[in-house]
């Protein structure tokens, strides 16, 4: 068992120090297979961020938001789920969690090129679409969790949002309802310090977001979002509670957005470069690498070969996502209604004939 429950409010729970050393007596709950797949997912996420950014600069991709810096927060939470029965409700900066549930890099690239197919989650992939209207997904997650339970499933739902979205009314309404319904949902509030250029100090006067949970009648935990083990453990506890019918948990994963908000943003207009360098010292990937190296699980050679393999995977996805036919006017009309009004069918006929 971790030391998490002893941590006082204000200090994020952590078991993996920045130098890669585990807290005294801490035994990871994440087994080596899980650990190594999480490590691979973190490297893949970082490599994909870089590749996607470069594709955007080449004009081959639209707006893209990186995970850069938040890999442990996203992967540590997602790895505590069982993709066959549990659900992920994303915002747009949680690609590794979606991939673990069965989403694909190809679809992620399609989404960012503006191909409608990118937001289609294949049947059996327990993920809701990307959410751009921030916080609107949080009520959905509560309803989904409630509905699963209503129908006898023991599946749980993880919903992601940020410090910015936490200011929206939907965040409040959703957490309040989740408490009332004891819905099996885990609110993962990634506090990455920024909502585009607005610092967290302008979102809240509170010392932590986790403390809000008390007001909703369920537990909240503040965890070091750059510590894969601490995030995984806190999520596992929340999942166990939710599965057992004990209701929701609010998990504040304190992390840092190490890059711009998205490809259209220049964070150096408002981020202090000295501060950014300090934050980079807490990079979750570097931290885990130090730990895995000390345990003899990775070395430079094995990481290089893993990264090479990942790059092949990413290039295959890039190839697969490019060169397809551009969607025609049908794409404007498909899936708007299951049973389209006559008026819309006439518009469709006109639009497709005009092409």
């Amino acid at each position, binding site marked *: 068992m971790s030391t998490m429950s002893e941590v006082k409010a204000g200090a994020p729970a952590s078991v993996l120090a920045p130098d890669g050393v585990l807290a005294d007596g801490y035994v990871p709950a994440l087994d080596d297979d899980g650990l190594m797949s999480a490590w691979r997912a973190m490297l893949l996420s970082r490599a994909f961020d870089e590749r996607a950014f470069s594709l955007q600069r080449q004009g081959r991709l639209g707006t893209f938001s990186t995970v850069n810096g938040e890999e442990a927060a996203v992967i540590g939470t997602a790895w505590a789920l069982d993709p066959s029965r549990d659900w992920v409700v994303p915002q747009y900066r949680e690609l590794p969690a979606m991939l673990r549930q069965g989403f694909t890099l190809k679809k992620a690239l399609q989404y960012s090129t503006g191909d409608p197919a990118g*937001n289609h*989650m294949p049947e059996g992939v327990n993920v809701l*679409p990307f959410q751009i209207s921030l916080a609107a997904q949080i*009520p959905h997650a509560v*309803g*989904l969790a409630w*509905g699963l339970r209503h129908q006898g499933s023991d599946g749980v739902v993880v919903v992601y949002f940020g410090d910015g979205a936490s200011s929206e009314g939907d965040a409040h309404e959703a957490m309040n309802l989740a408490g009332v319904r004891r819905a099996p949902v885990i609110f993962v509030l990634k506090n990455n310090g920024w909502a585009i250029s607005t610092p967290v100090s302008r979102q809240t006067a509170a010392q932590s977001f986790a403390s809000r949970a008390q007001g909703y009648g369920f537990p909240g935990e503040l965890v070091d979002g750059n510590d894969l083990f601490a995030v995984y453990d806190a999520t596992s506890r929340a999942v166990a509670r939710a599965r057992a019918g004990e209701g929701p948990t609010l998990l504040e994963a304190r992390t840092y957005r190490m890059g711009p908000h998205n490809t259209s943003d220049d964070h150096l207009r408002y981020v202090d470069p000295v501060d950014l360098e300090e934050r980079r010292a807490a990079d979750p990937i570097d931290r885990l690498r130090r730990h895995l190296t000390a345990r003899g699980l990775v070395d430079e050679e094995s990481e290089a070969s893993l990264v090479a393999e990942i790059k092949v995977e990413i290039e295959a996805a890039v190839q697969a996502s490019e060169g397809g036919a551009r969607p025609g006017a049908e794409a404007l009309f498909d899936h708007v*209604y299951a049973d389209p009004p006559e008026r819309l069918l006439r518009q469709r006929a006109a639009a497709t004939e005009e092409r």
Partner: protein
Amino acid sequence: MAVLNMVEAIRSCLGAEMERDERVMLLGQDIGVNGGVFRATEGLQERFGAERVVDMPLAEAVIVGSAVGLACSGLVPIPELQFLGFGSQAFHQIEGQVARMRFRSQGRYGMPMVIRAPFGGNVRTPELHSDAHEAKYANSAGLKVVMPATAHDAKGMLAEAIRDPDPVLFCEPLRGYRLIKDEVPEEDYTVALGKARWAREGDDLVIVAWSAAVVIAERAAELAQAEGYSVGVLDLRSLVPLDTDALREAVAGRGRALVVHEATLTGGFGGEIVATIQEEAFWSLEAPIGRVAAYDTPYPIASVEELYVPSVERVLAGVRAVMEA
């Protein structure tokens, strides 16, 4: 055949649909033990339990927003907005999420949901309870907007809406809940969405209306008869889907039309009706199309609302103006 008022017809439909399909569940404020502030859900929590007739926190956005998630899980939620005027508190969920979830997810997540919402004036409610906001929902692509004017249609169209795979905003006229009474079959039936109905026959002019405005239009048409005008009333029944064929045929045979609605004039759905008529039947027109609507002012407090909501007298004046043009 039993004569029911509109709220009885709605209640009977909700009970029957919950019986028919165990995925159907109701969410809203005060709908359980209290049976709804208008008694539309009276007795349903006793019959189906508190897990299917769910009293919700006072929070419109999450009443609708959680229904999105319930639908994604495979259920058929029927969230109730206690008043359509408060729908603005949930508009971002309705327009931004419910209406376009099927499109955004490319068919993976349909939204088989009916949002029930009472609306409309002349019942002396406090502020913001009475507004007729249907136009902004009709302008939300992906949503259907249904506005029955009879108890028969309320039952049949609500059943159709519940079984529809697409999300439906189902607007119920507050003033008609008890005043509108007509014959309602006890057995199961549905009324298709998007098929207008002749509420009254008449050869000289057609009044196009929906929901409680149909009743006002019918009374005005009766009075117009005494003045020698034969006025028909076309009840649109739904704005989306819109029965453009019925509009064309109605105007083609008469040449004169008047649109009546409770919503404000500017941006009201009447503008869409007028535009559609001129597209579909311009060469049949013998006079400019008239409109009788609420004024472009906020819905007033009770003492002056009769001056705001289109009255029989104002509609009759509208008929005369179009007939004499």
